[in-house]
């Protein structure tokens, strides 16, 4: 998943408080696509009052719905290949499955329509109605829908919200719906990120494998050696080495009269620019300074973990000496003029920046059959502190726990993620595939960069496990931005830790 800059659409939608009439509602009926606007009322908070007592906040175990699944014929035994789905045969009643997701490119959206047509051909009684909205609106839309008591059967979320989705009882436990073979085929860190207490609540949809992409032409022009070409994750460069390389690159480019090219592009993740997307981007600078192998409770381990074991405290986790050192490294990118202080879109693609902290997406698209890159692009690891850290949090749909059609919703996800459907989806989209057996059969994963990507995927971690990830994330992004713009890292992280702890208190009672 690459979080493109969608702040404009997102905020415009929030600000204007438009009802979801702009979301495209597609209804597939007997293979004939009809579009119509989709209007829903605002959240009916009152209807939740009855839930209040029973669903009162708790910090105990998962509240996610877990029901015994009646096993069906299993993979290969249904009217159509439903991937790893092993639940009961699907209903013969006329039903409509609603799917809330972000709008992708036209090509991607068309791919979904094709797949729905195939599904609908096998199960003509099951209609699929999609609601497409801007990516950034998904969390709020999910919240409103679930509060209203009338949510779509399937909704797109992200792996960093797994704990919340499970603990709030929003997501259905999908574990029993899928065969062990299918589940064990998922890259373990990605499956772990989608699970809580061993139960899988979100369907791993696409992985995020963070790397540094670089433009060899710009390095050549600057007369600077390219970043290390490596084949394993133990020999990447340190933050100091990366920064020194960027300083030399910038110095040489300016000396040659090039005042427009930056060493590192402005982040294109999330809202873009500094403090763009702590989950996938800026957390690298902090959590890589820790170590998952250090003794539990040590400062090193806490820095990597990012939150207390119960997920309700961050003081001593995001403001450790190691975390502060990590943010000082990050701050140097800006104080030394190595990357812009504001959001500028697509600098790397426009060859206005030598490097990009992004995902393997461009590499995978380059290496797929018929693929190519617009310029000579290379790939290396993100800077290593005490460990190589990368957060694998990507998009992941879930089945609403209160859906009337859990079997059919799970089956649809199985169908979309089947062996036949996933490779074409990922080649169109370019994201990292979530299952090892599929990666083994795709030639782009056999290149040195593809192999390295798989090793990184195996090394990745999820976002800090907290039910209050929304609060955590919302506080860290501006804090990181303030540091980028000159705020003292130690003071900022201390204040932010206090602020997040204050927000997480509501989950304790």
């Amino acid at each position, binding site marked *: 998943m690459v979080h493109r800059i969608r*702040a*404009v659409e997102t*905020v*415009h939608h*929030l*600000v*204007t408080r438009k009802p979801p009439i702009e979301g495209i509602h597609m209804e597939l009926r007997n293979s004939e696509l009809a579009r119509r606007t989709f209007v829903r009322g605002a959240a009916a*908070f009152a209807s*939740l*009052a009855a*839930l*209040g*007592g029973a*669903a*009162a*906040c708790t910090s105990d175990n998962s*509240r996610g719905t877990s029901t015994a699944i009646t096993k069906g014929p299993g993979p290969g035994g249904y009217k159509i290949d439903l991937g790893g789905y092993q639940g009961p045969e699907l209903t013969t009643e006329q039903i409509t499955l609603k799917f809330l997701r972000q709008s992708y490119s036209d090509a991607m959206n068309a791919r979904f329509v094709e797949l729905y047509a195939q599904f609908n051909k096998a199960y003509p009684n099951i209609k699929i109605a999609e609601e497409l909205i801007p990516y950034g609106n998904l969390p*709020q839309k999910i*919240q409103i829908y679930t*509060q209203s008591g009338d949510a779509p059967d399937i909704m797109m979320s992200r792996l960093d919200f797994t704990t*919340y989705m499970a*603990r*709030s*009882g*929003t997501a259905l436990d999908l574990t029993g719906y899928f065969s062990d073979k299918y589940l064990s085929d998922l890259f373990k860190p990605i499956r772990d990120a989608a699970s809580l207490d061993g139960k899988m609540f979100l369907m791993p949809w696409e992985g995020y494998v963070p790397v540094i992409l670089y433009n060899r032409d710009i390095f050549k022009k600057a007369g600077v050696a390219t970043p290390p070409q490596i084949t394993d994750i133990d020999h990447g460069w340190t933050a100091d080495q990366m920064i020194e390389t960027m300083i030399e690159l910038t110095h040489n480019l300016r000396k040659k009269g090039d005042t427009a090219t930056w060493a590192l592009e402005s982040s294109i993740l999330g*809202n873009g620019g500094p403090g763009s997307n702590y989950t996938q981007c800026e957390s690298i600078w902090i959590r890589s300074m820790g170590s998952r192998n250090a003794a539990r409770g040590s400062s090193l381990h806490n820095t990597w973990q990012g939150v207390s074991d119960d997920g309700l405290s961050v003081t001593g986790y995001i403001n450790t000496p190691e975390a502060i050192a990590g943010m000082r490294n990050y701050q140097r990118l800006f104080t030394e003029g190595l990357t*812009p*202080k*504001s959001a*500028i879109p697509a600098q790397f693609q426009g060859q206005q920046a030598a490097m990009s902290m992004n995902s393997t997406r461009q590499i995978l698209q380059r290496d797929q059959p018929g693929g190519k890159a617009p310029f000579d692009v290379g790939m290396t690891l993100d800077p290593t502190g005490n460990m190589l850290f990368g957060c694998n949090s990507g998009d992941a749909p879930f089945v609403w726990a209160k859906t009337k059609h859990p079997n059919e919703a799970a089956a649809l996800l199985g169908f979309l993620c089947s062996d036949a459907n996933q490779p074409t989806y990922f080649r169109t989209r370019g994201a990292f595939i979530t299952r090892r057996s599929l990666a083994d059969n795709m030639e782009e994963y056999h290149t040195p960069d593809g192999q390295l990507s798989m090793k990184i995927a195996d090394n990745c971690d999820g976002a800090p496990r907290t*039910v*209050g990830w*929304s*609060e955590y994330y*919302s*506080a860290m992004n*501006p804090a990181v*931005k*303030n540091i980028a*713009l*000159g*705020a003292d890292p130690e003071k900022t992280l201390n*204040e932010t830790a206090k*602020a997040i702890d*204050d*927000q997480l208190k*509501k*989950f304790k009672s």
Partner: protein
Amino acid sequence: MIAPAVVGIMVFQYYPVLVAVVHSMQRFDPFTHAPIEFAGLDNYIRMFTGADFQTSLWNTLLYVVISLLIEIPLSLGLAVLIDRKLPGTRFVRIAVIATLAASETVAAIVWAQMYSPDQGLLNGILGVFGLPPQSFLSSSGQSLISVVVMSSWKNIGIPTLIFLTGLQAIPRDYYEAAAIDGAGNFRQFTKITVPLLRGSSVVVLFMSTLAATRIFVPIVLMTQGGPNGATSNLVYYSYEQAFQYNSAGTASAAAIFMLAFLGVIIAIQFKVLGAKDE
């Protein structure tokens, strides 16, 4: 006859306020977001003791003061200019009214690009004159003023039209008589125009105060309340609490406080202006 209007106002104006008052004194389930118990004044205490709120409150006052200092003289000047029917006033009139037609969202995005420290138009112009680039939106000292400038540009149309209407209602005879008595332009302006625009000024003052208190879109799009909370105001604080921190009680408390805050400001303005009328 007025029953539909009264019902509409009750349902869409007063009922939401009532709900907000109730919510501001409740604690919410962080998962379902449903109110679960009476919290008394806890949300208010939490809000008042928070540094973020205090910063937002102070910033709100700054927004109001700076906006009024910019918008009232500027809109009055523009109105006088347009009223004179000098060469170019037709263009000014269209330009001023055009700001009303522009989407606030689009305007904020365009201004954010103009303010960009790396590729912005304004820094480009400064560079032409050999001046160093400015961090308009990322400096604590400049960001709030930068937001106000953008917001004032967007909002200047209506005050200008109000002043223009007021100007056109002043009989020309007054100016002719003053001129015969030897009063110059400045004296005519201070002794005739300004006093007779009192009604228009009160309307502009109230409207600009309300608009400045409620600045939101530019903050979200241009600064997200930063850097270090330097541009956050009460509206943004309330939005953050509700939609980013899922704290509906605190958000409601902030909304209610803002309502009271606005009421006090307007009452003070009314009192001061009313006293002068007596």
